[in-house]
C-alpha cells in the first residue's frame, strides 16, 4: 500500500508540475457567438505554452510561407508585444457607434479584443502579451534576414 501511495505521489507531483508549467504563460481564450439562425458558437481555452510548443511542429514549408508574408511586421510585432508587457492594464482603442463596439485593451497582462456588433455577434479574444512576443521571436528565428 505504501508503494502505491509513493507512486501516486510521484505521478501527482509530476502532473502538478506539468500543469503549472503548461499554464505558467497564461491561457488564450476565444469566444465567438453569432446570435442568428445557424450562427456559430466557438468557445475554447488554450494554454499559451501550447502555441510556442505547437510552432515547432508546424510543417517547415508552411512556416516559411507564413514568415515570408509577415516578415516586414515582425520587428514591430515584437516591440509592441515587449512594450505591452510593461502595461498590464490599459485601454488602447475604443470605438463605439450606435450599433457596434470594439475595444482593444490590456487586462491583467493579456491583450484583450472585444467586439460586439449590433446584430448581436460577439467576439472576445484574450491573448497573453508574452505569447505575441514568443510567436514573433519564433517566426523571426525562422525568417533569416529580418
Amino acid at each position: 500500500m505504501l508503494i502505491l501511495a509513493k507512486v501516486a505521489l510521484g505521478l501527482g507531483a509530476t502532473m502538478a508540475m506539468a500543469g503549472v508549467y503548461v499554464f505558467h504563460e497564461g491561457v488564450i481564450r476565444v469566444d465567438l457567438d453569432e446570435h442568428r439562425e445557424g450562427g456559430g458558437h466557438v468557445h475554447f481555452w488554450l494554454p499559451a505554452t501550447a502555441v510556442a510548443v505547437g510552432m515547432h511542429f508546424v510543417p517547415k514549408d508552411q512556416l516559411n510561407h507564413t514568415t515570408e508574408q509577415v516578415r516586414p511586421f515582425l520587428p514591430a510585432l515584437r516591440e509592441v508585444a515587449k512594450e505591452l508587457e510593461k502595461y498590464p492594464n490599459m485601454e488602447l482603442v475604443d470605438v463605439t457607434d450606435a450599433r457596434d463596439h470594439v475595444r482593444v485593451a490590456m487586462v491583467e497582462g493579456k491583450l484583450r479584443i472585444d467586439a460586439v456588433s449590433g446584430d448581436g455577434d460577439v467576439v472576445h479574444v484574450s491573448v497573453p502579451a508574452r505569447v505575441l512576443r514568443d510567436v514573433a521571436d519564433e517566426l523571426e528565428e525562422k525568417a533569416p534576414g529580418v
Partner: protein
Amino acid sequence: MQTYRGILVTGSTLVLAGVLAAAAFLPTRAIAQETATTSSSGRSEQWIHVRVESKEDHGETVRVNVPVEMAAKVIPAINKNNLHDGKVHIDSMHTNDVDIPAILDAVRSSRDGEYVTVQGNDNNVRVAKSAGYLYIHVTDRSEGKKAAASDGKPGAKARAGHESKVEIKVPMKVVDALFSAGKDELDIVAALKALSAHGDMELVTVKDDQNTVRVWVDSKNVAD
C-alpha cells in the same frame, strides 16, 4: 487507517508541490506587473490620447491611448513606405521653392510674435510663436459657403456652424526635434521623446459641424 494516512500525505504533498512550482514560475509575472505599476505611477509617464467624436445622433466615438514611450520604441521597428528608422522621408519639403526647414529655422530664432495672419472670406490663418510654443490656428468657412450656395443663395454668408476650426499648439522643442534629422526628413521618434519631456498639454483640436477631434498628452492612462 494507514491507507487513509498515505492518501492524506500524498494529497498534502501534491498541494505543496503545486504551490512550490507555482511560486517558482509566477514571480516573473508578479515582478513584471509590479515594475509596470511602479513605472506608471512612480515616474509620470506621458500618454498620447486621440479622441474623435461625431456630433451626429448615435455617432461614432473613437478613443486611442498610447504611451509616448511605447510609440517611441515601436515606430523605429516599422519600416514601410516613407517611414524608416523612426523618420519620415518627405519628397515635397521644398515644393514651389518654399524651404520649410529654413522657414522653421527662422521662426525658431525669432522673437515671440504673430508671423502669419491671413483673414480671408473663406479662411483665417494665424501662425504665432509665444512662450516656447508654436501656434497654428486655421478657420475654414469654405464648406459653409458651398453649403449656402447649394441652398440657392449665391454670395450668401457661410451657414452658421458650417466652419471648421483647427488649433495646433506644439512646443518649439518638439518642432526642433521633428526637423532635427536634416533635409527632407521628419524625425518622429525625436519629436516623441521631446514631447514626453513636456507636461500635460493639448496638441490638436479640430472642430467642425460633424466631428470633434482632440489630440492631447497627459499622464493618465485613460481618456477623459
